[in-house]
């Protein structure tokens, strides 16, 4: 790089360094993939608005029918969806609060405070990201059976209440977003650590907390493996309820699709409102991760 004379380099920058414009090919491919991404969801809505009889005919329907509300109603009562949606909201909400709060304070400690074993503990956090939940599922199940927590929501909330990814994510963010001088200044003014967290860290961390919160909510809402073991049909989350709907003896496919639609809709709404921020959050987490 250094051998290139500077005058020449400046002239070249205007040409080659410029971001390339997308051609028709790029647009074509992107539109195709966008369609593939969105199609199954749109088709869920179409199938949910038809009858099961119509779905077992060719060609498959490509436009909406008139049975949407009937199917939604059947799914609502058959799969206990009112309880399920409420449960999912409680579970995902609690996990989000726990994860965001504990990740922020732990991330702050790892980013800006000095203490012994810090590097070791941080390595431990990163290592735990590798351990899949399936490895601890048997003892967890034995526990909740012993505590009589089967069917209780805390059985689903507590095991995922903190997240290693969250701690790491907040550390990466606070490392650069929070000036160390700001903490030192607060210390000189006699602020305790709790006050610093409340008045300095939280305000600075707010954008990252929002992103982490949304990612955690999506994850917790969609979690499948553990809820299906820990909960039963009497007190399900949405994912558990959908499973039972599909595993009925004679599943009515239009009703199953209506259930799938209801289970996805809350998250889609979150996505329509906050999609841009979630995209930004994933990209931000990726660069530093």
């Amino acid at each position, binding site marked *: 790089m250094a051998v290139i004379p500077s005058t020449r380099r400046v002239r070249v920058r205007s040409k080659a360094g410029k971001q390339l414009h997308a051609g028709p090919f790029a647009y074509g491919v992107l539109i195709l993939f966008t369609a593939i991404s969105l199609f199954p969801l749109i*088709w869920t809505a179409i199938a949910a608005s038809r009858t099961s009889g119509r779905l077992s005919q060719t060609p498959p329907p490509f436009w909406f029918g008139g049975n949407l509300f009937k199917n939604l109603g059947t799914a609502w009562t058959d799969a206990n969806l009112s309880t399920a949606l409420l449960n999912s909201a409680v579970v995902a909400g609690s996990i989000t609060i726990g994860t965001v709060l504990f990740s922020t304070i732990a991330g702050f400690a790892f980013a800006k405070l000095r203490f012994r074993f810090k590097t070791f503990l941080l390595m431990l956090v990163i290592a735990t990201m590798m*351990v*899949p*939940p399936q490895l601890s599922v048997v003892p967890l199940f034995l526990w909740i059976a012993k505590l009589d927590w089967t069917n209780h929501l805390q059985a689903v909330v507590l095991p995922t209440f903190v997240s290693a990814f969250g701690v790491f994510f907040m550390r990466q963010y606070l490392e650069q977003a929070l000036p160390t001088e700001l903490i030192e200044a607060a210390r000189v003014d006699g602020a305790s*650590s709790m006050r610093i967290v409340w008045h300095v860290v939280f305000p600075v961390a707010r954008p990252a907390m929002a992103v982490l919160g949304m990612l955690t909510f999506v994850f917790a809402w969609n979690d*499948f493996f553990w809820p299906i073991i820990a909960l039963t049909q009497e007190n399900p989350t949405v994912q558990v309820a959908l499973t039972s709907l599909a595993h009925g003896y004679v599943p009515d496919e239009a009703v199953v699709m209506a259930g799938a639609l209801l289970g996805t809709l809350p998250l889609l709404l979150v996505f329509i409102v906050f999609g841009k921020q979630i995209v930004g959050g994933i990209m931000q987490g990726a660069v530093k991760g």
Partner: protein
Amino acid sequence: MASDLTAAPTASPDKGGAAPRDHAEQARRDRDERRRKWRSRFYRWDVKGSPYAFVSPFFLFFAAFGLFPLIYTAWNSFYRVELTNLDAREFVGWHNYTRLLQDEFFWNALKNTFTIGLISTVPQLLMALGLAHLLNYKLRGSTFFRVAMLVPYATSVAAATLVFTLMFGTDYGMINWALEHIGFSHHIDWRAGTWSSQIAVSSIVIWRWTGYNTLIYLAAMQAVPPDLYESAALDGASRWQQFRHVTVPMLRPTILFTVVVSTIGATQLFGEPYLFGGTGGEKGGSAHQFQTLGLYLYEQGWTNYHLGRASAIAWAMFLLLLLIAAVNGLLARWLRKSQ
């Protein structure tokens, strides 16, 4: 700090003892002194202790719900523990493991996990790389494309699998209908065949995760210094050559990261095959043709009630992950060396 504390008490008697009317003054000064002492003690305690207080919730929860169960799983794997009677435990030594190694369904599940992992991860990451490259162009509506591609990520395993199961239907499914239109006369029974079912399950995984990986690659691409492209263009590199010789090498750490994450995800694959299998999905098809290790664990533990055996499977999965991590580490070293 320490010199302040020792200096203050010696200073007060010779001043305060001079006149009796200074008693109130003396008391006030003592109080201030105590407060200052306490405050400095609190300060030191706060600075030293609060980092631990801040990281402790994570570690407490992790110890209780991550580490302890993991070790306890190992313990359980040496016992016969039945779901029907949790209190009757019987020590059986390595029996659960030896039985596992003789079980054809374990090897079958291991093989399926591997093949499904391969045919879902490789195309997914390759497509993500290409899409990220396209999204990295100057583009109208780039935010729209990004959000739209991430929508599948927000869809749950359950909802996505139910839709795909319907689309992969044998007689009236949309995919067979479309294939018929491009010349396939014979309807594929997606759930019955080994390859067809594994492709169907993989397609759900690919659909859900391609957009996510695309964004991760895009982020990494945007961090590549433009100078590198300049000098490549100067050397006469075509766009494709720039992609191959600048973008991909610069993205190596990110690619490695996504490979690791996807591999871990693939080892744990459960929801997609479980729901794709319909009623009795834990078997992964009538002939276990798409039973993954996750399904096998669930079947042994919660359908056949052998929790001890399920624990042994969990530890086999853990060893597998360690193996993957080791291979990965070697691969990373080799990549660095070859550079």
